[in-house]
């Protein structure tokens, strides 16, 4: 793994990453059809990255439509489970998707999956909507307008996100319910377990490496 994350290695563009992702996805799809197995979820994260990239680069409304149809109902359900009524959740889910369009170029696929990025937008919209406590944030770190994160960082982060989803699905029911309650805003800080025992170590390490590379380019 060492040389794979060498900071001095020349950077590839996100577009190459997307092409590589498309290829992987196509291969997996062929395999899946051949074996009549359920879709390999590992390709999903990269698919959303491709679509969001098309929104950022070309204002592609077909790509946006696909993102909308998948994520808008999830954002709405997330907001309802967080205590919003249906009308408010509908309105805010649309607001969240407008933000997805506007901020598409800000998304960094080497540090978050599309679902994660949309979660942060939905969470912030929920705080405004339910007049919860203001939530200051650290200044954002981002690549400059003409730079791209590394393609291997993108591939491994997206893969790691899919694996995290699979790992969370394997957790005991009780533990999953506690996580959901925390993220729907049902638990206070003191109600969250001291030792969450969550499998976040690997994805954290990936993000840390991507951050180091970003810091390196900023300096």
């Amino acid at each position, binding site marked *: 793994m060492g040389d794979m994350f060498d900071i001095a290695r020349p950077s590839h563009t996100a577009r190459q990453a997307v092409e590589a992702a498309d290829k992987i996805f196509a291969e997996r799809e062929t395999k899946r059809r051949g074996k009549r197995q359920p879709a390999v979820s590992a390709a999903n994260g990269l698919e959303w990255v491709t679509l969001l990239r098309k929104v950022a680069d070309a204002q592609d409304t077909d790509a946006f439509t696909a993102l*909308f149809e998948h994520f808008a109902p*999830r954002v709405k359900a997330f907001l309802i489970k967080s205590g919003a009524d249906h009308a408010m959740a509908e309105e805010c889910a649309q607001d969240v998707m407008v933000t997805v369009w506007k901020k598409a170029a800000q998304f960094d696929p080497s540090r978050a999956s599309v679902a994660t990025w949309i979660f942060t937008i939905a969470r912030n919209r929920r705080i405004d909507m339910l007049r919860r406590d203001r939530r200051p944030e*650290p200044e954002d770190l981002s690549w400059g307008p003409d730079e791209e994160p590394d393609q291997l960082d993108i591939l491994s982060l997206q893969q790691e*996100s899919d694996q995290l989803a699979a790992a969370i699905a394997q957790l005991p029911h009780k533990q999953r319910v506690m*996580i959901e309650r925390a*993220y729907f805003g049902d638990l206070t800080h003191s109600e969250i377990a001291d030792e969450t025992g969550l499998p976040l170590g690997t994805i954290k390490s990936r993000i840390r490496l991507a951050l180091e590379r970003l810091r390196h380019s900023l300096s």
Partner: protein
Amino acid sequence: MINHHLSDKLLMAYSAGSLPEAFNLAVATHIALCDECRARLASFDALGGVILEEASAPDVSMESSALSATLERVKTGKPTPRARQTAPQDALLPAPLRDYVGDPSHIRWRSLGGGAKQMILATTEQATARLLLIPAGTKVPDHSHGGLELTLVLQGAFADEHDRFGRGDIEIADESTHHQPIAEPGEDCICLAVTDAPLRFRGLLPRLAQPFLGI
């Protein structure tokens, strides 16, 4: 080198958006100084992404006009281009804190006696945030921890018999924490201190001032 970090539960609650404002401020300020916790937070956000991805209810779908209404709202605008961020890393007050304090060269300090000073920051009432200045070489004001208390060092350092806390380090203390740290010689120690004890200025001020006044 930062040695004292945020706890998982603070990061999870911050990621979920359920902390009182004053705690949010302390978490954001630590993360502005600590890439390790920035990455840990991103991993908790990834967990939020998993929860969002699986959020569904059988009776929940978007209204039939939702997509066209949203497309109507976005069709006039291009996505905002990226801008390179150039936040100074060495500023006394990291960005989240600057919004609360204002100009760092004109912090509105109020004396606590003995050279110690504080500035209360405006947040919601569930928790209180203040900047504390402890003169170099003196004891940190003795105060009981009514509940959870976070102390983030911004300048200088303090130490007790076990640990040393320098810039970026955050101490997480609760009722069971009994110690009396001392600000190191050299630079005055400036901290962001956040507590979820109720706001009790009258009671708190004399108690904070006590060790300095010698009463």
